[in-house]
């Protein structure tokens, strides 16, 4: 399948965008995840949750081919291997915030432009139409007025939206984010979540997002993947976020309440 067609095909009828069958992966001597099978449909917003060390980041890195110790099969649009360089550079990825040096001397527009470097190619110069793409990506995250500002002058939430724009500038159909709302205040969390909702609902971008705050995403997600190494549950929020399933990974003190038709998770000693 021509990968360029895929990039332009955001409005194609819903189809399987990513599938994992029997995926086992981890680091030398330790397999963090084993026998994961799942299928993600184009246009879905999937929340990935689980305790620390449950393999959430490992899973995303495995899909992108950053972890060599991997068995099983991953398919992008049923045919392509997302770990192949030509395919993986079409998947938007936002790593954990701490991974980026946010004091790096660069303007916001220059940071976003980096997401286009692989398309521009070695020894080629940036052209005017590349800057137009950068402006489009910045407007998708509502940051176009900050294009000329230095990255380090922005707030944590604004910086995170710039990093999301960097992942969007190459026009991906799948966006994977590793705790994008960690280490930002609640107002910035809300801004980031609103941006992601817009991208998913209006731009039809499929989103896989790791988070520790289950309640913040429960009303946004079509599906939830609950991970804890060998254990995993995958389904709609109402299917996965039950006391029985959550307590297998988070322990007995988990309590699930219904809040406007959505599950709401509490931790502590409660009496039903």
């Amino acid at each position, binding site marked *: 399948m021509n990968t360029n067609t895929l990039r332009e095909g955001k409005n194609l009828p819903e189809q399987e965008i990513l599938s994992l069958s029997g995926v086992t992966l981890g680091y030398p001597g330790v397999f963090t995840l084993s026998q994961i099978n799942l299928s993600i449909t184009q246009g879905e917003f999937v929340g990935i949750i689980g305790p620390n060390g449950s393999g959430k980041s490992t899973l995303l890195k495995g899909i992108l081919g950053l972890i060599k110790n991997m068995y099983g099969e991953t398919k992008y649009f049923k045919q392509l291997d997302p770990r192949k360089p030509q395919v993986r550079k079409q998947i938007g990825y936002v790593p954990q915030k701490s991974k*980026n040096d946010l004091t790096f*001397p660069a*303007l916001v527009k220059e940071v976003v432009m*980096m997401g286009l*470097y692989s398309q521009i190619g070695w020894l080629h110069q940036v052209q005017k139409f590349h800057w137009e793409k950068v402006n489009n990506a910045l407007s998708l995250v509502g940051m176009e007025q900050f294009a000329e500002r230095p990255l380090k002058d922005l707030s944590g939430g604004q910086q995170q939206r710039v990093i999301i724009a*960097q992942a969007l500038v190459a026009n991906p159909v799948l966006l994977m984010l590793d705790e994008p709302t960690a280490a930002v205040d609640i107002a910035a969390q809300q801004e980031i979540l609103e941006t992601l909702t817009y991208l998913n609902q209006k731009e039809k971008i499929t989103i896989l997002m790791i988070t520790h705050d289950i309640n913040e995403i429960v009303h946004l997600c079509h599906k939830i993947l609950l991970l804890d190494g060998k254990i995993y549950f995958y389904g709609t929020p109402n299917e996965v976020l039950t006391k029985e399933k959550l307590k297998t990974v988070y322990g007995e003190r988990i309590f699930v309440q219904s809040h406007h038709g959505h599950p709401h998770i509490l931790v502590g000693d409660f009496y039903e």
Partner: protein
Amino acid sequence: MNELLAYTFVQRGLIGAAIIGASCSLIGVFVVLKGMSYIGSGIAHGCLAGVALAFLMGWNPLLLSMISALIMVVLIELLNRNSQLKMDTSIGVMFSFALALAVLFIGMLKKYTPEIMTYLFGNLLRVTTQDLWVMGTVSLLVILVIFLFFKELQFSTFDAEKAELSGIPSGLISLMLSILMALTIVVSLQAVGELLVLALIILPASTALQLTTSLKKMIWISMILGIFASLSGLIAAFYLDAPSGSTIVMLLGVAFFTAIFFKKIKNNHLSRMERVKNIEKI
């Protein structure tokens, strides 16, 4: 000043100072941003072991220091990849080993060799025409590689993992940077010395980082500062009858602390303005 310029060894020294000032401060921008300073320290110690061996065996010191610097880069990289040690530990291990070898070779020298002191403390006024050609070639190589691969260097310095995902081989870029740094250190060794070469790499770039928020401007400021400090440091050394490496680094140190001081004042002023704005809003 004119009488100073009449001496050919001074002319050679000034040309050498400008070349080394430019290449060290240019490579220094990426060394500082990537946090690779300690690798530079390891490479410089590796060079000293090579130089000491060259004097012991009667071989060419430049060639031996180049070989030992490249061996050092490869060994640090291999140790880091194949052990579960952190990068600074890998460098520390190789650093100590290279220094021990250098001390051993120097100890084995049968006769007094004052030239080896040049490699420790540097002397720009002893630079030969042949040295200038080698320095010029390496500097041109550094400038050319950084100009040609600017985009890739910028992205892999900002976020190596994401650059790798988008098809830029960050590991190779990092290795290329280490090799360029090794070559720069080798050709600068005789001029500024093993002990001070790292300062010439780190200080102009660190000062420039305090003054700008753009990578391209950081490169220009760092290079101008590197060239200016090297030239004026050498002239000061001549008049003060002091070692040139020391005067150059002292000037760069003053520039760095001045930049830190002005940045602090500017930040305090900005935060005061911010507070005033907030009070006006209330």
